[in-house]
């Protein structure tokens, strides 16, 4: 920053009436303004970049000045707030699909018939109330069957 402050003074030895150097200065300013830097910093960095570029006596002042500016900006990162990785640190965890048994046969045998068998067994071996319920259900079923057949 100290170097930058020293370089901030107007580059008096550069002929800014030369269209090439004037274009370089305008482009530098535009770049720095697009970065939304404060006006004072825009001027200081422009002057510093021009000075550095001029020292090399380039044929293309614009390219040289932009290169110089990139070098200056690289030394003062971060230039832009929030130009940082956008995610927190990872904490890996597993999320693996469980195998799905989609077999209808399995469903009918294990999840439909088997619970019905178990339920019936419970009714048969259960309390008196349950047994009565079973008798009632059998009677209703028998009635419906009888009615259907006749």
């Amino acid at each position, binding site marked *: 920053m100290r170097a930058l402050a020293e370089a901030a003074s107007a580059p008096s030895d550069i002929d800014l009436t030369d269209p090439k150097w004037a274009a370089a200065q305008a482009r530098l300013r535009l770049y720095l303004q697009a970065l939304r830097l404060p006006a004072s910093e825009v001027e200081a960095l422009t002057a510093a970049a021009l000075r550095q570029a001029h020292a090399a006596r380039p044929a293309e002042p614009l390219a040289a000045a932009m290169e110089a500016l990139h070098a200056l900006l690289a030394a003062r990162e971060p*230039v832009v707030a929030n130009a940082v990785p956008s995610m927190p640190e990872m904490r890996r965890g597993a999320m693996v699909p469980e195998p799905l048994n989609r077999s209808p046969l399995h469903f009918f045998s294990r999840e439909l018939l088997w619970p019905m068998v178990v339920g019936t067994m419970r009714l048969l071996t259960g309390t008196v109330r349950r047994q009565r319920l079973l008798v009632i259900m059998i009677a209703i079923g028998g009635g419906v069957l009888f009615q259907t057949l006749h």
Partner: protein
Amino acid sequence: MRRSEFKHEPWLKMAAWRRSLFLLLIVVPTFIASGYMAAILPHKGATVLEFLIVVVFAALFAWISIGFWTAMLGFYTLVRKVDRFAITRAREHDDTPLGPKARTAILIPVCNEDVGEVFARIRVTYESLKETGQLERFAFFVLSDSGNPDRWVEEETAWARLREELGYPHIYYRRRRVNLKRKSGNVADWCRRFGRDYRYMVVFDADSIMSGPTLVRMVQLMERRRDVGILQTAPACVNRETLIARVQQFANRLYGPMFAAGLHFWQLGDAQFWGHNAIIRVKPFMEHCALPRLPGKPPLGGDILSHDFVEAALIRRAGYGVWLAFDLDGSYEEVPPTLLDELKRDRRWCQGNMQHLRLLFTNGLFPAHRALFLNGFMSYASALLWFLFLSLSTLEALLEALMVPEYFPAAERSLFPNWPVWYPQWAVTLMVSTAIILFLPKVFSVALVYLKGKTHEFGGLPKLICSVLAEVVFSTFMAPVRMLFHSKFVFVTLLGGQIGWGSQNRSDEATTWGDALRFHGGGSLLALIWGAVVYVVNPGFFWWLSPILISLVVAVPLSVWSSRPDIGRAARRLGLFITPEEVERPAQLRRLDELRAQASADSLLGVSGFTGAVVDPRIHRIHLAQIRAPRRQLESIAQRRLELKERALRDGPDALSDQEKKELLADPAALQALHRAIWQLPDGEQARRWGLPALA
């Protein structure tokens, strides 16, 4: 933690009783109505054709009965005011701070959405949460699957800006390079990377908004009820201005609460997850809800598209409840603005729901979730059944008119004639009963609003009644159009036709006449031919079909006019389809309106998207911070990128395809080289192509 831990929850027994009652209320009237239907037909259902008609009718009647009884039970629940199993009773609202372990991530999966809108909504939710004083327990994650290079960069820029303006570090953004399994894959990806740090996640849609107090309350409820895996809110539909969307919003706000309460009544802890505006317990979700690929090719195989129902079934299989917080306010979403947008969305949902049939027999699922899979499938298959019913009825009517009846069939040897009889008055009775089932819930909704003294929220009682009548007419016209499209979707999906999964249109853009003609023209022509044939052969039956045929014939203007925001606004001026959010705008929606008005550009150079990331130094740096340099790069790839960079520099951004733009955006070295080269361009055409202003 498997099924056993929560298997003695008290709601389980009540659910069995309520579902038995519900089933009885559907099955018995369906049997009676089907018998009635058979009696109406000329041959009393004795021919194959008539038997098919009766079977299809029974399926359709059962289907509409589900809606009717759900609404009636919802009415009962809301009139009683107290449901001891309502999930919100687990804890009254209070200001107790959330514990440090109740960390909650708000996930906002996006895919080529309107960036400004998405981030404005996040901001609204953030500000509302901040007001609760419990913000520090929440983090926001924007999870992007955007394939459009401009959207990609705009999202990054909007994220950086929001974070800078709010000064809150826990707003994150991530874009996936590979969009495996779409939204569900995006959420699963987040779970694998960051899920261990959070106890809960609230999944948003791109158009979701939730109020801070609601979010806090949901976390409190989850903290209190450890058996709950997913807590779903019933979002209110808001913000749209087109006619069809305003009608949908009105229907959602008037009838929605009753239906939601009814769903709660019989589903209890086996509720649906709608994929958004819901809170999820992360650990069991990670352990049990990873979705496998279905064997076979799409549309019925491959990735599971409608993941939400399946995730609900899987988390329930693991023993956790899925509850619908039907009485929780402060949850909002938006509906598609036009009929065509709605149908595009329905096509995706249709394919997803049809895939669920393949999961129907999955081991360990609870019967209620199998029923919900079937219910989801029927949402679209019912359209095909309706179409089939109309076709079979037409065929029957044509045959009756064209064929000479055989009064004494040789096979029967009877003294009495086999006399085909048609009783129109019975048909009218059946039609009226069906109409009652369809429309009575609407009457009860009005009664409920009146009883609760909330008619002013809908513009007052007279306007409310007029709106309901207009909505009935509107939905009667729309139903056949939707039926035809849904039938086509089911049919095409069964034949193996696939669909794209693009982003939704969420802006009020009216449908053009050309688009409407392209989409509805075929249906209108079919209706004209259908009507003409029936009118010529059996004019009596024509009048029975006419309401459906007329709707199809006028589908084109209906689709265009219903998509126009000016007609929607005119209806509003007339006091039609007013919703509570239009009468008194909630603070969050008011704030959203303000933010929309304040939208400003991110670049001082006036460039955005891909061009912004290449040219604007600020956007360029933000973008570079988000991408990783490839660990290794093949010589051939490096050479191709170099050529691409040279071509881009020479011809400007418009000369590049989206794929080429993405390639450059993903390569930091190539992007930096292009950025520097552009800024070194002399004043002239090339520089102007990249948006650099002329140097004075």
